[in-house]
């Protein structure tokens, strides 16, 4: 028989084993190809070209994708080789040289890769269209019908990447075949399995330590952004990462066996079905599974945290936009008159609010919640803040009534307010020109009144009594360019007019501002809608790429867990056969299997969820303003996907148990 015949024959006979590996390959090619296609797609390119971060984001994401695909394919190959160790041993036993076996396996892999790349590119071509539509949807980009053409660049780069991957896989296999002895090939399937010995006291201690490590990491993460004297953010982050990752490994390696062993010892040999089918095999395999479970858990946690954070950012776009541009249109002094005229001419209904404002130098150290710490130099110096009168402020917050020498700090929100909390029970020093006094701060609000820039000091700002405002305005009257004194916030009454109003806004020239008094250069003061589109474009690409990577991670880790369960089920066929002979019914065995799957998928998921929860909780406010909904949505999706993999795995076990007898 020629080698080629042998290759084809062995592939035909092993179709069931190949199917899993082949599926993993196709899946990787599909993900990769559709992502690269997106990158080279015209519509996507046009939609994202305005955002520099988007292009960079795509680049970073494609490198991440290399990593996921590499990790996934190498792992699948590893499982595949383990399953075939007997076959390889047999070839050697009948006198085939190792070099020939390596060539045999190499031919097979080249065929498999070629097939997978062809099929994967076919599927990827179809899915890339779907992904492109999703992307344009999240960045709220309409107007372009997605015309997907087959991208030769994407084809080239996919073929190139998978050719390299094939090369690495071949090296891995050649190494595997050359290194191992005949005997170890026959027992490779059993390698790494450990008989659980009586637990020694130090193992119990280490198991306990794992839990302590994780608990400490969680505790430290809640303190991460509390600024104090001996704060070293990077060291703290490193410690948190080290304790949680190390703790996770120890938990899988020792704590799980430790807890299960306690249960088992208590039974004194009298096990029930669940103990027999779930607990003892899990304990048995914990040594070989600890590393991969740790890796899967950490990957789950990381991708979940990243997805959640970017979703938080995307979800909070509205809040972020409103902080920067608090009304549909922000007009300065008389510069907006032409725009308002245009609105009137076109019968567009709107409401407007005038906010005269001025400036004062303020020292607000005594408001700091953590006054003793050494940071916050910003708040310890005199800073220039915008000031408005109570009357103006009452347009937004009618309930506010200030007495003499009282004031309110407002517009203090976002991550700055979370990092540097202020308390409304102190006094501030206010001065401008001749005026200098101490005011009592009665409240701290988040309400944004003035948009940021141009020539407006951003947040926070000060609200004072009308009398004091007049005083400050007079003291501040030596005008210098540019010195704006009034902001007009315009809100459309009917949002259907928005499109027309946007056009009028640019037409009126109310958006153009000179950069300096003697300069011809201008910059644009965006309307709320313009700002929103900018944000959506940047955040949309971020949420899309992180979501895509999150999905890739999720599918890769879920598939690996599923593959692992498939090979475990195969290895345990004999035990199921024995149990059924003894009189265990299918249903009784399945009850144990449910528990086993609950553990196999549930525990990495649960620990991953906890990790990402604490990671997100420690710093979410840096990314946006809403935690609960994005967190629940992403976690819900993850749980759902893991559930699907769990169900797949259960149905495989069902098949194995049915056929074991």
């Amino acid at each position, binding site marked *: 028989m020629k080698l080629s015949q042998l290759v084809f024959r062995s592939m035909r006979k092993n179709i069931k084993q190949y199917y899993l590996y082949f599926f993993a390959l196709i899946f990787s090619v599909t993900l990769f190809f559709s992502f690269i296609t997106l990158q080279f797609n015209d519509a996507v390119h046009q939609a994202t070209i305005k955002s520099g971060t988007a292009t960079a984001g795509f680049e970073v994401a494609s490198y991440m994708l290399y990593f996921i695909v590499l990790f996934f394919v190498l792992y699948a190959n590893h499982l595949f080789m383990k399953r075939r160790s007997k076959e390889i041993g047999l070839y050697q036993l009948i006198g085939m040289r190792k070099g020939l076996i390596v060539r045999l396996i190499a031919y097979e892999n080249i065929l498999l890769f070629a097939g997978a790349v062809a099929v994967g590119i076919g599927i990827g071509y179809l899915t890339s269209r779907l992904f492109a539509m999703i992307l344009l949807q999240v960045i709220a980009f309409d107007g372009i019908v997605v015309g997907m053409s087959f991208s030769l660049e994407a084809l080239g780069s996919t073929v190139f990447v998978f050719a390299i991957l094939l090369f690495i896989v071949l090296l891995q296999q050649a190494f595997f075949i050359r290194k191992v002895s005949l005997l170890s090939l026959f027992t490779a399937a059993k390698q790494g399995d450990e*008989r*659980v010995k009586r637990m020694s006291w130090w193992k119990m201690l280490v198991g306990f330590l794992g839990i302590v490590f994780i608990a400490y990491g969680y505790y430290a993460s809640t303190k991460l952004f509390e600024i104090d004297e001996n704060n070293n953010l990077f060291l703290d982050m490193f410690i948190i990462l080290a304790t949680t990752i190390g703790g996770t490994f120890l938990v899988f390696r020792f704590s799980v066996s430790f807890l299960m062993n306690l249960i088992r010892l208590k039974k004194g*040999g*009298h*096990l*029930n*079905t669940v*103990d*027999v089918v779930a607990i*003892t*095999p899990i*304990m*048995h395999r914990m040594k070989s599974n600890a590393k991969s479970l740790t890796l899967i858990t950490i990957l789950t946690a990381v991708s979940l945290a990243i997805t959640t954070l970017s979703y938080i950012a995307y979800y909070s776009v509205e809040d972020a936009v409103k902080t920067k541009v608090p009304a549909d249109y922000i007009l300065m002094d008389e510069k907006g008159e032409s725009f308002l005229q245009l609105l009137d001419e076109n019968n567009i209904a709107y409401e407007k609010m005038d906010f005269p404002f001025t400036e004062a130098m303020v020292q607000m150290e005594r408001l700091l919640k953590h006054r003793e710490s050494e940071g916050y130099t910003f708040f310890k110096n005199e800073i220039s803040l915008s000031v408005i009168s109570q009357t103006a402020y009452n347009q937004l917050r009618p309930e506010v009534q200030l007495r003499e020498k009282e004031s309110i700090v407002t517009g203090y929100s976002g991550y700055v307010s979370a990092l540097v909390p202020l308390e409304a029970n102190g006094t501030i020093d206010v001065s401008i020109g001749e005026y200098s006094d101490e005011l009592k701060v009665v409240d701290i609000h988040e309400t944004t009144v003035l948009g940021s820039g141009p020539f407006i000091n951003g947040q926070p700002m000060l609200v004072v009594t009308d009398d004091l405002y007049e005083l400050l305005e007079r003291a501040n009257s030596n005008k210098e360019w540019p010195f704006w004194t009034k902001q007009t916030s315009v809100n459309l009454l009917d949002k259907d007019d928005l499109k027309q109003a946007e056009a009028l806004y640019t037409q009126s020239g109310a958006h153009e501002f000179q950069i300096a008094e003697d300069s011809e250069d201008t910059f644009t003061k965006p309307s709320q809608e313009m700002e929103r589109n900018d944000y959506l474009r940047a955040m949309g690409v971020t949420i899309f790429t992180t979501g895509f990577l999150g999905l890739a991670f999720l599918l890769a880790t879920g598939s690996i867990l599923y593959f692992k369960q498939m090979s475990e089920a195969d290895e345990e066929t*004999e*035990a199921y*056969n*024995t*149990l*059924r*002979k*003894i*009189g*265990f*019914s*299918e*249903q*009784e065995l399945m009850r144990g299997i449910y528990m086993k799957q609950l553990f196999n998928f549930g525990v990495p998921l649960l620990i991953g969820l906890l990790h990402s929860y604490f990671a997100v909780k420690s710093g979410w406010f840096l990314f946006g303003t809403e935690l609960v909904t994005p967190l629940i949505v992403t976690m819900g999706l993850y749980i759902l996907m893991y559930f699907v993999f769990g169900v797949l795995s259960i149905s495989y076990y069902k098949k194995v148990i049915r056929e074991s*007898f």
Partner: protein
Amino acid sequence: MAILRARKIKKVYGKRNLAQEVLKGIDLEVDKGEFVGIMGPSGSGKTTLLNVLCSIDQVTEGMVEINGSKLQGMKEKELANFRRDQLGFIFQDYNLLDTLTVKENILLPFSIRKMPRAVVEARFREIISILNIEDIVHKYPNEISGGQKQRTSAARALVAEPSLIFADEPTGALDSKSAVALLTNLAQINEQKQATIMMVTHDAVAASFCSRVLFLKDGALYTELYRGDRTRNEFFQQILATQSVLGGDGHEA
């Protein structure tokens, strides 16, 4: 009193032209307390017979009745319950679960039936003392010898005191000394506890421990020998003689 009754059982593998009749209508009765051996050359249908008698495999025709219950027509779940409550199994390759200790393996049958822990513990103590495996109960299967594994397997089959114990080549993988030790134990339990045992073997020495030996040839019952009052050695000689008449693998013993 007959504990097992089989009527005209036939087993056919394959379909139509490829069909092969492995059992060609066997009638059989086993009384309570009997130790029955099944012998015959390779391919005579010994193991198939045992499998259809113990409900692991289905007959093509005929019926099997154990302790008054007919196996044919029982649903999968009823069969599982039936095996649990009535039958014990000992196999050539032990079929122990690697992940369980010897004690846990032996107590497996109790995982699926409700019985007071004290009763279970008492039965367990008794059986391990008869089989002489007290010292290894906390070890794992990979830490003990083949003979010990097989005695563990036997203990598991016997501990629930089933109506009928099936053994398929229980000594097949053992050296002669371990084999004799195990068979002595089985014979002892058969006598003391009136346990009914059916054992497939191709080993004349093993068969000589039985009270009756059936010989199969080409899927039909060829003859049967009763030990009666003879010594084990005399019975052994007679078995050898019958085997040589029968041909096949007599020399293997």
